[in-house]
C-alpha cells in the first residue's frame, strides 16, 4: 500500500467530530501549558497521560500530539509579548520577537511566527509521511545488537552534541537509567534496587520525574528570578495577517534552510531547542539585514520558529520507526505508547497500521487547527499571563501534585515529585541537562533488554557490536559522536594551527 493510500485511510479515520473536538481541546490545553510558566510540553503531556488510559490509543495520541503542537505555538506567544520563553525551544524567538512587539509590531511578529511554524511543522510531517515506512521496513531487519547500537547512537549523540558539559550529561543520563532499573527486572522477574522498600516495588515512573523536574523545578527557578510580567498588547486583525503573509515569500530561503536544520536536529536527538538556536545563528550570519538582528528583524523570528516546529514534528519519526524519541516530549509520548500496550518500533507500522496513519494524518490537520486556534485566541492567552503569580502558582503546583498522584494513585509519588523538583532546580542552575534523564528513564528497560539479548547471543563478547557492517557502523558512529567534542577540538587545533601560519605573513 502506498503512503498516499495509507494517509487517506488515516484521514478517514480521524475526520470525525469527536477527533476534531479532541484536537481543539488538545491544542487549547497545549497553548495553555505553553503560556504558563512552570508548565511546558513535556510535563503537560505527562500530566495528561493518566487521563488517556480510558481512551482508544488513536484518540489518546491525537490529544497528546495536539497538545504538543499547541505548546510549541503557545511558547512563541510569551516569547514575543512578554520576553519570557514559555518553552526552552522558544528562547531564540525572544531575541527579535520581543523587540518587534515593543515597536508595536507584535501582531506582525506573532503572525510571522505562527505561519512559519506551520510551514516548518508541515515539512516535518511530510518527511514523516514519506520516510517512516521505509525506515521502519529497514529497521525490521534489526535484531538486538542493532537496536542496542541505535540506542547507543542516540545516547552518545546527546553527550557529544549537548551544549552542557559532557560529564554532567552523563550523570543526568545515568540517573535516568538507574531509575528505569528500579523495581521488577523484566527478564528474571527479580526485584532490583528496591532495598526491601514496598513503595519502590512498582519502580520510579518517568512521569513523576518529568512533572517534578520540569514543573516544580521551573516554578522554583521562576520564583528566584522574581518574575514580573510586563507584556505588550497585541490584537491580530485579518489585515495584519494578510500583510504579513505577503511578506513571507521574501524569506523563502530562510524558511527552507531553517526547515532543513529543524528536520535534521529533530531526527537526530538534538531536539527543538538546539534546532531553533542553530537556525537563528545561521540566519544572523548569512542575512543581508545582519545588523538589524536583535533589534526586531522579521527574519530573526521566522528562522527559529520554522526550525523549532520542524524539529518538533520530525522528532516523532525516530520515535515511531525505531522507538527512539528525538525530544523530551516525544520521550514522554513514547512512554504513553508503552502504557497503552503498543510497542514503539518498526513492528508498529505493521501491527498498528491505523494508529500510525491516524497519528500522521492528525499531524497535518492538528497543525492547521493549531494555527487557526492560536491566531484567534492570542488576546485570551495573553490575558491569562496577566493573572497574578500568587493565583497561578498554587494552581499549577496543585495540578502537578494531582498529576503525580494519579500515575499510580500513590502519595509516595507526590513526595518523589517534590524531591525531583528540588533536583530540577539544582540541575537547571548548575547546567545539568534534564532531557537525557527523561530519555534514559523511558528507554532504560528497552536498552537493557537489547543489551542483555545481544550478550546472550555472543556469550558476553562485546565484539557482537561489530559483527556485521550495519551494527559495526552504527556502533562506530555512536563512539564518534561520544568523542565528538574531542575530535572536533582536535580538528580545530590542526586547522587553527595551519590558519594561523597562513595568516601570519599577511599581518606582517
Amino acid at each position: 500500500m502506498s503512503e498516499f493510500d495509507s494517509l487517506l485511510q488515516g484521514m478517514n479515520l480521524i475526520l470525525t467530530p469527536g477527533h476534531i473536538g479532541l484536537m481543539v481541546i488538545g491544542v487549547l490545553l497545549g497553548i495553555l501549558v505553553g503560556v504558563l510558566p512552570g508548565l511546558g510540553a513535556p510535563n503537560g503531556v505527562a500530566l495528561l497521560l493518566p487521563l488517556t488510559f480510558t481512551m482508544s490509543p488513536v484518540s489518546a495520541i491525537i490529544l497528546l500530539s495536539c497538545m504538543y503542537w499547541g505548546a510549541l505555538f503557545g511558547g512563541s506567544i510569551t516569547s514575543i509579548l512578554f520576553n519570557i520563553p514559555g518553552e526552552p525551544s522558544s528562547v531564540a524567538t525572544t531575541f527579535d520577537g520581543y523587540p518587534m512587539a515593543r515597536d508595536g509590531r507584535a501582531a506582525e511578529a506573532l503572525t510571522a511566527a505562527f505561519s512559519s511554524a506551520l510551514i516548518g511543522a508541515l515539512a516535518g510531517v511530510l518527511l514523516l509521511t514519506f520516510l517512516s515506512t521505509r525506515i521502519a521496513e529497514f529497521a525490521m531487519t534489526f535484531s538486538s545488537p542493532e537496536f542496542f547500537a541505535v540506542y547507543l547512537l542516540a545516547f552518545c549523540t546527546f553527550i557529544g552534541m549537548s551544549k552542557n558539559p559532557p560529564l554532567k550529561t552523563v550523570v543526568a543520563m545515568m540517573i535516568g537509567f538507574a531509575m528505569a532499573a528500579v523495581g521488577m527486572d523484566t527478564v528474571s522477574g527479580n526485584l532490583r534496587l528496591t532495598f526491601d522498600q514496598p513503595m519502590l516495588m512498582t519502580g520510579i515512573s518517568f512521569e513523576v520525574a518529568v512533572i517534578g523536574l520540569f514543573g516544580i523545578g521551573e516554578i522554583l527557578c521562576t520564583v528566584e528570578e522574581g518574575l514580573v510580567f510586563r507584556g505588550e498588547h497585541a490584537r491580530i486583525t485579518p489585515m495584519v495577517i494578510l500583510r504579513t503573509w505577503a511578506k513571507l515569500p521574501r524569506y523563502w530561503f530562510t524558511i527552507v534552510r531553517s526547515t532543513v536544520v529543524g528536520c535534521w536536529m529533530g531526527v537526530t536527538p538534538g531536539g527543538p531547542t538546539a534546532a531553533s538556536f542553530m537556525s537563528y545563528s545561521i540566519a544572523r550570519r548569512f542575512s543581508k539585514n545582519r545588523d538589524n538582528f536583535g533589534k526586531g528583524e522579521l527574519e530573526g523570528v521566522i528562522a527559529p520558529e520554522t526550525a523549532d516546529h520542524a524539529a518538533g514534528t520530525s522528532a516523532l519519526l525516530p520515535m515511531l520507526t525505531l522507538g527512539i524519541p528525538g525530544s523530551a516530549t516525544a520521550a514522554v509520548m513514547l512512554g504513553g505508547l508503552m502504557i497503552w500496550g503498543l510497542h514503539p518500533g518498526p513492528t508498529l507500522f505493521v501491527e498498528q497500521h491505523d494508529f500510525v496513519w491516524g497519528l500522521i494524518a492528525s499531524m497535518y490537520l492538528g497543525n492547521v487547527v493549531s494555527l487557526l486556534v492560536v491566531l484567534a485566541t492570542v488576546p485570551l492567552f495573553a490575558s491569562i499571563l496577566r493573572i497574578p503569580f500568587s493565583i497561578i502558582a498554587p494552581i499549577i503546583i496543585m495540578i502537578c501534585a494531582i498529576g503525580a498522584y494519579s500515575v499510580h494513585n500513590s502519595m509516595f509519588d507526590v513526595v518523589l515529585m517534590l524531591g525531583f523538583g528540588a533536583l530540577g532546580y539544582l540541575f537547571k542552575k548548575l547546567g545539568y541537562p534534564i532531557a537525557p534523564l527523561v530519555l534514559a528513564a523511558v528507554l532504560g528497560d528497552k536498552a537493557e533488554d537489547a543489551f542483555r539479548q545481544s550478550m546472550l547471543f555472543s556469550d558476553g563478547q562485546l565484539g557482537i557490536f561489530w559483527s556485521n557492517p550495519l551494527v559495526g557502523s552504527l556502533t562506530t558512529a555512536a563512539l564518534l559522536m561520544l568523542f565528538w567534542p574531542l575530535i572536533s577540538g582536535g580538528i580545530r587545533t590542526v586547522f587553527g594551527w595551519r590558519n594561523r601560519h597562513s595568516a601570519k605573513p599577511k599581518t606582517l
Partner: protein
Amino acid sequence: MSNSSDSKSLVGTRWVELGLGLFTLLIGVVVMFGSVEQGIGWGDAGPEPGYFPFYIGLLLGSASLANAVLTLIRWKPLSVSFVSRTEFKQVLSVFIPIALFVCAMPLTGIYVASAAFIAWFMWRDKVRAKPYGKLMIGAVSLGAVTASFLIFDLWFKVPLDAGPMGDWIAMAGRSLK
C-alpha cells in the same frame, strides 16, 4: 535578577557543585551496591539481573567523581555566588509551603489540602496594592478544587484520594440512600 547585586551571597557555586557531585556519587554507589546484591556476573540464563545496572552505577559514580574533582580544580573561579540570601528566601517561601502541602495530602486528602494551599498562597500575598478579598480567595480555591474533582474523578474516572473528609461524605451519601 535585579536584587542579586544588593544582597549578600548565601553560598558559593563551588559548594553546591561539590555537594551535588557527591550526592550523585552516593546514588551511583547505592546502585552498584544494590546490583551486587542481585549478582552482577554470568548466571545459568546469561547475564544476572545486576549485570546492566552495575555498570550504570559505575558510570554514574565515576562521572560524579570526575565532576567533583573538576569542581576542586576550578575552586577559585567557581567562587561566584550560587544564590543570594533574598533569592533563596523567595525560593524557600515557595518550597516549604509545597513541602507542607505534600505532607498534608495523605492526612487530609488531596482536595482539602489543595484548597487550603491555594487559599494560603493568595492570602499571603496581602502586601500587594490590592489584597484579595475573602470572597475572591474562597472562590478561586474552591473553584480549582471543584474543577479538578469534575475533570479527574467524574469525567476521566481517575479517583483522587479524598482523605477522611471524602470518606465521611461518601458515608453520609450512602446512609441517605
